[in-house]
């Protein structure tokens, strides 16, 4: 699974895309967030961290499946 990264999450991870190997068996958005938080503790210090699946905000219960476009959404600051 590829995770698109923007803004401060891109800087924390150091890349604009993060590859999650299938053997991590992350089945929900919530599991993905927990996994990311462990690997990148700096993500836990953000004011908020949302996940988008196929460019829609997703809640923690949403299942992940191959072929989806997944992105991390740190606190937005447009306008």
């Amino acid at each position, binding site marked *: 699974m590829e995770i698109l990264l*923007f803004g*401060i999450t891109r800087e924390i991870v150091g890349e604009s895309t993060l590859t999650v190997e299938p053997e991590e068996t992350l089945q929900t958005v919530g599991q993905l967030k927990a996994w990311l938080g462990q690997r990148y503790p700096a993500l836990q210090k953000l*004011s908020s961290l949302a996940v*988008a699946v196929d460019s829609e905000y997703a809640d923690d219960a949403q299942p992940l499946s191959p072929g989806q476009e997944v992105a991390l959404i740190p606190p937005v*600051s447009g*306008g």
Partner: protein
Amino acid sequence: MLVKLVTEVDLNEAFHYLQDPGAGGIDLFVGTVRNHAHGKEVVKLVFEAYAPMALKEMQKLAVAAQQQWPIEKLVILHAVGEKLVGEPVVIIGVASAHREVAFTACRFLIDELKKTVPIWKKEYYQDNSVWVNAHP
């Protein structure tokens, strides 16, 4: 509706799109780069967007506004990339038969855009830079 991410927001493009025989009032909000923020001098801003989702979210806001108010025409333009002090970064425009609607809907759109649209702003000061809103 006209909803776009662009490298340069264009006030004339917005106004010409909004001109409408049924409109008596057009409200245009233009967000510009301010030379100070959080007590520090700002040198420039850089905007980054998750483009397909940002467009979707901006379109949702446009639809929400059109469902709430009688709007003739509506524009949301947001810049990406580097912007200097004084430059415009976002333009919201609403044309309506009556000015109350234009003001109210324009205000709604900029307020909501700042809450939900996946666009990120990095502020560059003399000595460092910060992703705005990232930390508590």
